C-alpha cells in the first residue's frame, strides 16, 4: 500500500512524496491487522492458509477516510494499492 502527495503533479510516486505514520487497516474474513506507512509505504503479510488467493482484502486509511479492495495474492506474490493525494494550494505567506 502506497500513500503519497503528488507534489510535482506527475501522477507518479517520487522520492520524498510519501506520507509517513499514516494508520493503515487491512481486513479479510474476520482477520484485521493495522500498520503505519513509512516513506509512504505500508506492508502487510498474509497467510495463504488463512486467507486464500483472490479473497477480497479491504484496505482502509481512517484518517483520510479512504478505502479500497484488492484480491489476496498467491503465495510469494505481492498485491498493491495506491492512494495519490493532490498537493494543496498554499498561500504565498502566512495570514
Amino acid at each position, binding site marked *: 500500500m502506497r500513500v503519497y*502527495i503528488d507534489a510535482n503533479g506527475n501522477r507518479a510516486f517520487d522520492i520524498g*512524496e*510519501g*506520507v*509517513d*505514520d*499514516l*494508520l493503515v*487497516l487491512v481486513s479479510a474474513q474476520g482477520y*484485521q*491487522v*493495522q*500498520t*503505519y506507512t*513509512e*516513506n*509512504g509505504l505500508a506492508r*502487510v503479510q498474509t497467510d495463504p492458509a488463512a486467507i486464500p488467493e483472490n479473497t477480497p482484502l479491504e484496505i482502509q486509511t*481512517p*484518517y*483520510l*477516510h479512504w478505502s479500497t479492495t484488492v484480491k489476496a495474492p498467491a503465495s510469494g506474490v505481492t498485491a498493491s494499492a495506491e492512494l495519490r*493525494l*493532490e*498537493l*494543496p*494550494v*498554499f*498561500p*504565498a*505567506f*502566512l*495570514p
Partner: protein
Amino acid sequence: MTTSTATARIFDAYFRQRAERADAFSLGDQIALVDTLLREAEEQGMVPIAADRVARVPPDSPRVRAILEGRDVAIGGAQIQGGQTWQQRMAALPPLQKVLILVAVFLVPGILLWGLGAVRSRSLEASETPAALAAADTATPTPTLDPASLFPTPTPYGAVLADSNIPDGPNDPVSIAFSSLAFTLGKASLGAPGEPSGEWKPAVAEWLPGTEVRRVVAVPYSQEVGAAVAGMKYGDLLTLRLRSGETAYYTLTDIRRVQRYQIEILNDPHPSLVVILHSERSGERWVLVAEAVQDTNLPLPTPRSGGFVFATPTPDLAFTPPAPVTEVYTDSLTVDNPQAGLRLHISHCANVVQVGAAQGAFVVCDVTLTALQDGVRYSGDTLAITERAQVEQVPGWWPAPLSVIGAFGTGEIPAAGQSLDGKVAGEVAKGRSAPLLLWEQGNLRFVISLDEALQ
C-alpha cells in the same frame, strides 16, 4: 449622566484581563488593582477602550479631570471648543467619553460583581476531575485525558459565515476546539474574486481547503486565544469536528514562532494539524503543531517506525500571550517606541489615485525607521494608513494591507542609530475624515495624524 451596557462589558472584560494577569483574586488584590487603574487614569490618562486595549488621553484634559474629580459630564453635550490640541479633540470623541465615564461609574460595582463571579468559577473549576480516556495504542498515547473534560465551557459559536464559505465536503473540518475555546471554521479562499490569488486573509477562523494530511487552520491572534493557548501544555488535545459528524483529535507537540514567509510549516507528510494565530501586527506568527491521534483497538502486528520527528517539548509551553495594547494619539511626525526600540519619522505624505493596479483614493507616506538600540526587529506589517472615522468606530481597527513599491519588509536593524527608509500606503476611500498612520509594535499603538505631513 448615562452609560451603555456595551461600555460596561468593555470595562468588565478589561478588568478581568488585568486581574488575571496580576493574579488578583482576593478582594484586597482587586481593590489594589482599582487603585492602580485609577492611578493610571489620573497620572497617565490611560483608559480601557476594549478588553485588550487602552487609550492614552491627556490627563490634564478638562473632561478627564472632571470625571476623575467625580463631576457629571454630559454625553453629546458641550464640546471642547477652539484652541485645543489634536489630542484633546480626540479625547472629546463620543466613544471615549463613554469609556471615561465608565471608569468612574462602573469601577467599584463592576469589580464587586466580577469578584463574586470569580469566586464562583474557581469553586467550579476545583470540582472537575478529568476522566480516563480509553485510548488504543498509538504513537503518542494520552491515557489520562478525556476530551470532553478539556472543553467544559466552550465559547458559543458566534461567527456568521456566508454559504459559500462553509466547508462542504463530508470530511471537511467545520470547527476547532482547544483549551476552553471553540471556533466555527470557514473555508479559506486565497484572494478575493478578481484579485491575484496567493493571499490568505481570514476574517475569523478558517480551514485551508485541500489540506488533508497536515490540516491547516487559522484562528485570530487575540487576548482570548492567547490566554487559552498560554494555559495549554504539550500533549493537550485539539479537536477538529468534521462535516460528517466525526471528531478528529490531535495532541499538541510544538508551538513555535515563524516568519510569515515560512510557509513550509503548512506542508508536512505526517497526519497532523497546524494552527496559525493570524493577523498579529508582526512579520512573525505563532503556530501550534499537533499530531493526529489515530487509534484503533487492535494490537500492532509490526512495531511502528521511528520516522516521526517531534520537536523537543519543554516543560512549559514556550508561548507569550499578547499583552494589552496601549494606544497613543499624536500629531507629531516623529515618535519613539521604547518597547520596540525604534523611532519612526514621517517625512512626507501624498494623496494618490492609483497604487499598483488598484485605483481609488490612497495616501502614501515616506517613513524612516531608526534603531534606538542594537538588533531591533521591524516589519511593514506593523504599519498602516487608514482614516480617523474607522479608528473611532472600531476599537483596534486595522485596515487590509496595501502593497506599494518601496514598502517595508520584515527584518532586523543591526545597530543603534542605523536607519531604514520605506513607504507605507493605505486606502482612504471614505475621504470624509482625516488620514492617520497606525504603528503597532511592542504593545504600543501609535495613531498619528497625517494632516501636517500632507500639507
